[in-house]
């Protein structure tokens, strides 16, 4: 009731302000009249009566003001006034306002862009049910060079049987399957999974179902689960597909379901399970019974509800320890299992980069903030006189405070708005250059959380820095300023602050420029780095024989030789070969155990990357033969089993001796034949297959006929356009056998580019941020110098009047700025050398004290500073003495 009346009164005073004013006016007039008549009736003459009545009533306007100041309308009114005044004062110096808004937009925009990346990668949970319950289980084989290794089938069984804190463990292994129905054969990236894999993961099918226990029973019909993309493209999104049979690897297989479009397997990058798998089939039960030395299963476990991560991790480690003691296969070292949170592990490698980026953005925000504060302070200083007069005539400090706030808010809203546009552009740019390890950035959108972040940031920041000038304001004593010069020049304190800010931001941009220079140099070194092979002018394609008529070694060898002969006959082609695994490929390639011939203790087996290659492969990739010979067509299935090893393996096993003629025993799964003794016929310079920056793992190569692999990647070196080679190759394959699928047609160099992508991404980002920092700093130096020059205008006039030359006046303006910039750059160099120690891991072949980076980085900032200070100095030099004296 009362509130209703209040609201009514509020609306009345708001909507009918004129009426309320008129009422008040009339009421007071009427009261005056009444009082006057009263005095008259007491016998006072009319004039005296009026005066007495006026005296009683007091000042009518004051009463009105008093009444008004209590109304809602009044509050709105003054806010509106503040807003208009704030806007007017910003517009009065449009250049400053525009610069501030731009700085704001740059700062808020880049922070928001990075936040949206952080949001999608680190904060958004993986798209599985209760994803925080999921763990990924690794095995520590550091002894053999694999700190993060997968598990063997029996080891998965151990976890299942002994784990009490888990509701399940699922395993997956990446492979390929060939769809051989219809007109065009196609090879799909597929996953071989345990029946409970999807249940453990917490992912369900869009159509049909995923696998369930029992699907892998020996007599159960083969089943396949398809990705949304394949279902849509190859089967035109036909919902009746589920339940029908299609030909997979030549076998009729039932389609049991289709996964939703949003489903992706987001396992750790080095688990080497591609996240764009296209189909899933079941792991045969016999694969889970393979020996313990064959570690190939990527295992995901789901913790029971309420189980703590640390407890679950302890349990997994304990199981590993017990298993290692129980089974002799592990030898003296035992087994080490460890579990990590799936999401934490997936972002393990990106996290430091992202945090580094966040730090860079914070620096950038600081620079931008410092500039805005600096500009606002100089502007406030210029308006000092004006402000002081307003205080003198009675403007409350609260009102001045409010005005500063309103100005800050206007800048925030404008800057934040433009900043969002900047952020949108940056996110788009980031997504387009992101490395595969950051695939989830794709999901990055400017959603509500990010929007709220930007808004909060803009407003907080704007208000904070808009209030910076107040520190000056509240120190103001009216008398002091009025009595002083009257020119409103800044005091020494303010100048010191401004100088400090300038040094600070020059230092920060020097650090960013120097470190990004180091990163760029490292990246350049990386591109020139020798991989042990040359990927330029080489095209590759893959060919699968699964589902074809060719099954036995002899006809496959004949086919392969024939195909290579025809490919080599393409005009312009200089070398042709094939390999089971391309360098930097994501095809799973787990190390194979081998044993030197004189060694009998199986637990001392080494692990090496095993690749099956044809003659011509090493020529096509231009690998270097250190000794011995390459494989030839004379190395057949029936001839002496031979191998080529790399320099790492050769120098470790026979450091003082030639490896040629020595023998190693290959593990049973390595060549497909049991315990073969291989004679080494050649030593090849180590090829960087896995990492571009260092030599990882020893390598053994087998002749393809002695170690059959499918699919094979064909590698063609030529002098002509890659696309012409591929066109010719396609028609050759089609003539040989039209049912064979060709896929993954790519230049070999693209695999290397792919492998370098994360570092390239880091470098691009660092450079982008350094460039923004440089621009912001330049603006800042310009702003400070220009303002200083403007304030000293009358001083210059006096100097001119006393006979100073324009060059000398310009020098005054110039020198200050450049000296400060030089100090800042020196500080920056110092800090950068410390920062470079922190990013040493990111630097390839570059010392953290690589001098040119420092010279160029600091030099660039200094040049920018000189240019920025030049303009105001030049302007000061062109002042006419009279104008500068008149300026105040």
């Amino acid at each position: 009731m009362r509130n209703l009346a209040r609201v009514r009164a509020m609306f009345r005073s708001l909507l009918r302000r004129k009426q309320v004013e008129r009422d008040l006016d009339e009421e007071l007039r009427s009261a005056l009249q009444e009082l006057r008549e009263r005095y008259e009736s007491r016998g006072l003459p009319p004039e005296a009566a009026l005066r007495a009545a006026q005296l009683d009533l007091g000042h009518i306007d004051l009463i009105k003001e008093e009444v008004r100041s209590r109304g809602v309308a009044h509050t709105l009114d003054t806010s509106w006034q503040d807003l208009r005044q704030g806007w007017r004062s910003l517009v009065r110096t449009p250049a400053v306002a525009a610069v501030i808004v731009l700085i704001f937009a740059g700062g808020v925009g880049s922070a928001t862009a990075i936040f949206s990346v952080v949001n999608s990668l680190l904060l958004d949970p993986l798209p599985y049910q209760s994803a925080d319950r999921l763990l990924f289980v690794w095995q520590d084989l550091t002894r053999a060079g694999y700190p993060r290794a997968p598990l063997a089938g029996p080891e998965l069984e151990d976890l299942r049987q002994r784990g009490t804190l888990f509701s399940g463990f699922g395993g997956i292994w990446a492979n390929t399957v060939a769809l051989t129905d219809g007109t065009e054969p196609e090879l799909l990236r597929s996953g071989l999974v345990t029946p409970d894999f999807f249940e453990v993961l917490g992912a369900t099918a869009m159509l049909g179902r995923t696998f369930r226990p029992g699907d892998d029973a020996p007599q159960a019909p083969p089943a396949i689960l398809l990705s949304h993309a394949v279902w849509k493209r190859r089967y035109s999104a036909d919902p009746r597909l589920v339940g029908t049979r299609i030909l997979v690897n030549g076998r009729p297989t039932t389609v049991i379901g289709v996964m939703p479009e949003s489903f992706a397997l987001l396992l750790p990058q080095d688990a080497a399970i591609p996240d764009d798998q296209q189909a899933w089939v079941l792991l045969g039960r016999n694969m889970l019974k393979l020996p313990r030395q064959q570690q190939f299963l990527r295992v995901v476990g789901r913790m029971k509800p309420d189980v703590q991560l640390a407890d679950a991790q302890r349990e997994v480690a304990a199981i590993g320890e017990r298993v290692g003691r129980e089974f002799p296969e592990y030898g003296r070292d035992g087994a080490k299992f460890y579990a990590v949170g799936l999401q934490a592990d997936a972002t393990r490698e990106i996290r430091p980069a992202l945090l580094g980026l966040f730090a860079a953005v914070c620096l950038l925000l600081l620079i931008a903030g410092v500039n805005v504060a600096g500009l606002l302070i100089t502007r406030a200083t210029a308006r000092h006189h004006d402000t002081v007069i307003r205080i003198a005539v009675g403007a409350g400090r609260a009102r001045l405070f409010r005005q500063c706030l309103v100005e800050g808010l206007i800048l925030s809203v404008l800057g934040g708005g433009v900043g969002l546009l900047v952020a949108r552009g940056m996110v788009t740019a980031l997504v387009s250059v992101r490395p595969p390890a950051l695939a989830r950035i794709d999901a990055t959108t400017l959603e509500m959380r990010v929007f709220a972040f930007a808004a909060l940031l803009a407003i907080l920041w704007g208000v904070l820095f808009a209030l910076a000038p107040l520190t000056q304001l509240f120190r103001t004593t009216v008398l002091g300023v009025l009595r002083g010069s009257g020119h409103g020049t800044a005091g020494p304190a303010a100048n010191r602050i401004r100088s400090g800010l300038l040094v600070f931001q020059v230092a920060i941009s020097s650090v960013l420029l120097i470190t990004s220079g180091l990163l760029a140099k490292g990246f350049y070194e990386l591109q020139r780095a020798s991989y042990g092979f040359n990927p330029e002018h080489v095209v590759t394609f893959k060919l699968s024989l699964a589902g074809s008529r060719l099954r036995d070694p002899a006809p496959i060898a004949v086919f392969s030789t024939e195909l290579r002969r025809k490919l080599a006959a393409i005009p312009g082609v200089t070398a042709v070969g094939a390999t089971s695994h391309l360098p930097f490929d994501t095809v799973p390639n787990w190390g194979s155990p081998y044993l030197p011939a004189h060694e009998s203790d199986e637990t001392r087996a080494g692990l090496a990357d095993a690749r099956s290659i044809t003659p011509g492969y090493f020529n096509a990739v231009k690998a270097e033969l250190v000794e011995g010979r390459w494989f030839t067509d004379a190395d057949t299935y029936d001839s002496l089993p031979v191998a080529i090893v790399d320099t790492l393996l050769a120098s470790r096993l026979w450091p003082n001796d030639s490896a040629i003629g020595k023998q190693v025993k290959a593990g049973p799964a390595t060549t497909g034949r049991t315990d073969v003794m291989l004679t080494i016929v050649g030593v090849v310079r180590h090829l960087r297959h896995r990492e571009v920056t260092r030599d990882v793992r020893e390598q053994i190569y087998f002749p393809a006929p002695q170690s059959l692999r499918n699919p094979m990647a064909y590698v063609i070196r030529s002098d002509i356009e890659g696309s012409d080679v591929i066109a010719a190759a396609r028609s050759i394959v089609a003539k040989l056998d039209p049912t064979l699928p060709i896929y993954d047609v790519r230049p070999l160099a693209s695999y290397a580019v792919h492998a370098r992508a994360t570092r390239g991404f880091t470098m691009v980002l660092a450079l982008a941020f350094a460039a923004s920092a440089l621009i912001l700093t330049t603006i800042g130096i310009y702003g400070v110098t220009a303002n200083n020059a403007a304030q000293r205008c009358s001083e210059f006039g006096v100097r001119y009047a006393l006979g100073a030359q324009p060059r000398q006046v310009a020098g005054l303006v110039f020198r200050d700025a450049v000296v400060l910039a030089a100090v800042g750059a020196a500080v920056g160099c110092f800090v950068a050398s410390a920062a470079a120690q922190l990013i040493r891991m990111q630097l390839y072949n570059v010392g953290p004290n690589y001098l040119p980076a420092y010279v160029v980085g600091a030099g660039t900032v200094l040049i920018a500073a000189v240019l920025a200070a030049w303009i105001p100095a030049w302007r000061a030099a062109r002042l006419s003495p009279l104008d500068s004296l008149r300026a105040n």
Partner: protein
Amino acid sequence: MASRSTELLKGTVDLLILRTLELGPRHGVAIADRIAQITRNAFVIKPGSLFPALHRLEAEGFILGRWGETPEGRRARVYTLSGAGRKQLGIEKRNWARISVAMGQVLEAE
């Protein structure tokens, strides 16, 4: 004396106005007259504080102002106590009683 009392009793203007209007609708000058009359000129509320107070009370919804006529036939804004105002008056009366008892105790204490 009067001016000192006004100083001291600034907060009680509302109570005085509400109490006066409880006796019947009145216009501005008549309210001041009535207060002066009852308190035998102890409290003289100047128009300078009367009118702002009236408008504040109206904005709070305690009283209602309408254009009407004074007994002398003059056009004036006549104020009436609203239901909310009556309740508020009760609250302020109790407050005042508490204050005056407390003040009395302070003054009588040895």
